[in-house]
């Protein structure tokens, strides 16, 4: 088995919340527990997916990996080296090895720059490449790689002169300029329509195969995650609650939260048509300032019993084949689930407004 490129252990990020006067007087502090102790590792050449609802801490995790934010607790290792608290030159090196693609490519590109300048910038910042001529050659090669060709046509354009899909290709090209060892792609395709989405992901995957790239792919779109990733981690309120090979997670999910996510996905399938499944989940996601005790999912879980909130939070246990799940009732629920397939009603799955 190859060395993991990245190892995160108990990675934690709490943001302080502005205090009210009474809180200041009483020396109270509230925290947004955005990332609340996550552990995972990413192998070289692997695509690791991070999925979950809005606000569950995916972007924050990505930023911690990039070291754009200080780590509150836990450790982060890149290629065997502890990078948890690096500063200065080491940090600059880290930011060169780990690159990020953002959801909105506008945010990462200076609108006044041409695509040529956008791509040159990282080379200049990190002083890579012998001279202008060598950098020029690279820029053209990368544009060909992301299929913005002929390069001459695109080099002179500004970001707003590209379609959404082309802009995301340019953003990908930019991250590739420094030959990174890890790319964090944060919802790179969620703003574009389905056909273009498929086109971009195909291109990213092809690059990964050809160049041996490693990605962390952040998304809330489970249907592309299945195709695009090797392994998937499902986050809920700052914690990973299920993790494993992508196919296993999607076809044989065991955590009630993952099952709810999967049950809610629409599919263009005949037969199922016009009968969207009841979504087996209650209410809405609570605030990350006020994380429920015990299993943090229990208030929304249709299967929770007293021990789920009275006892300690369940750990993310390996149940074989690299499949990990943090639910103390998963075996019973699995049995119930099998029974439910024969009689839906027995489970009492209901529509929740």
């Amino acid at each position: 088995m190859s060395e993991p490129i990245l190892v995160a252990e108990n990675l934690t990020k709490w943001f302080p919340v502005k205090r009210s006067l009474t809180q200041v007087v009483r020396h109270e502090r509230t925290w947004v527990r955005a990332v609340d102790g996550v552990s995972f590792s990413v192998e070289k050449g692997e695509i690791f997916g991070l999925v979950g609802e809005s606000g569950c801490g995916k972007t924050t995790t990505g930023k911690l990996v990039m070291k754009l934010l200080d780590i509150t607790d836990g450790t982060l290792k890149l290629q065997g080296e502890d990078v948890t608290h690096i500063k200065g030159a080491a940090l600059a090196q880290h930011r060169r090895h780990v690159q990020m693609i953002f959801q909105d490519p506008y945010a990462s590109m200076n609108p006044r720059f041409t695509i040529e300048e956008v791509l040159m910038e990282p080379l200049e910042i990190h002083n890579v490449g012998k001279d202008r001529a060598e950098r020029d050659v690279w820029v053209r090669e990368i544009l060909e790689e992301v299929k913005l060709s002929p390069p001459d046509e695109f080099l002179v354009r500004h970001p707003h002169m590209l379609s959404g899909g082309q802009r995301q290709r340019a953003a990908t090209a930019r991250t590739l300029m420094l030959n990174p060892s890890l790319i964090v792609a944060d919802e790179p395709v969620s703003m574009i329509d389905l056909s273009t989405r498929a086109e971009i992901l195909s291109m990213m995957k092809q690059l990964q195969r050809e160049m041996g790239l490693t990605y962390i792919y952040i998304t809330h779109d489970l249907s592309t995650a299945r195709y695009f990733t090797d392994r998937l981690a499902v986050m809920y309120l700052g914690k990973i609650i299920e993790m494993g090979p992508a196919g296993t997670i999607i076809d044989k999910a065991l955590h009630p939260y993952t099952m709810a996510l999967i049950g809610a996905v629409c599919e263009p399938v005949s037969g199922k048509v016009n009968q969207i499944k009841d979504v087996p989940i209650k209410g809405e996601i609570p605030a990350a300032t006020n994380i429920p005790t015990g299993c943090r999912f229990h208030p929304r879980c249709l299967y929770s019993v007293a021990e789920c909130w009275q006892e300690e939070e369940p750990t993310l246990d390996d149940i074989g084949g690299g499949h990990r799940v943090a639910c103390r009732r998963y075996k019973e629920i699995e049995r119930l689930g099998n029974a439910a397939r024969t009689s839906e009603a027995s489970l009492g799955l209901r529509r929740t407004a």
Partner: protein
Amino acid sequence: MEKERVLEVQDLELHYFTRKGVVKAVDKLSFFLRKGETLGVVGESGCGKTTMGTALLNMPTPPGRIIGGRILLDGQDILKLSENEVRRRVRWETIAMVFQGAMNCLTPVYTIEKQMRETLQQHRTMEKAEAKERMKNYLNLVGLSDDVLRRYPHELSGGMKQRVVIATALFLEPKVIICDEPTTALDVVVQAQIINLLKDLKEQVGVSFIFITHDLSIEAEVSDRILVMYAGRIAEMGTNAQIYGPQGPAHPYTQRLLGATPRLHEEVEELAFIPGTPPDLIAPPEGCRFHPRCPVLLERCAQDDVPLREIEPDHMVACWRCFDE
């Protein structure tokens, strides 16, 4: 017996008169909406879905202008009415729209009550107390509690804001509601909840919907009939069973669009996509507008403009291959 048609659109044309030229964003569309039905409108980004929605409210965005066609709402052509009459009797009263991204455009400093009043009170003179009572009713109907009225947008989740916007659209009891990408920015769980809500409303209130999205898998869940748009025109229109059934859709564009829509429980080597990009609507290609990207084109496709024809009841296609001549 066929259900009555609440909306009938004939040869509707809306062009944007830009400095670079005339963008033919809605180019002679004809279709209808039956009472109590949900009609899905799909197509890639930029094909004219939102533009069509604004046209149906007779509310083009500048520099857009409706340059032809008829929009019969309950038999009356609203394009023949004065702006004043449209504002008083049609828009929001008979046909309402949940705009793309509206949930993110609520005024941050207004309470939800004030937001709803702003949109509605210019329409009907109603006692303040009566209006408030109705607001509560509609908020409850979309699954929100009364106290939402006192809250500010930032205190609500995305799903709750979308429910507020839907409640506002329902308030004057229109016959038709156009929903433009109402779930696109939402998580899957919330998306499913909103879809279930719209279905319940259709049953309870009997309102008819036009549901706009670029995602065919959502249309499969919500729509009775699907209208597929390509480059400002209708490529195909059919019932849910005709589009998603075992035979599959007839138009090569719809087929490709469906092929590019991933299925959760299928292992695939490669995601399919439609090579090329949609055409420039200032100078669209001759013949069938899809022909430059079509994998199965005939010689005449590049030359002859293709009409929309019925190939079986309720199923219309604009593709030379589908016509036996």
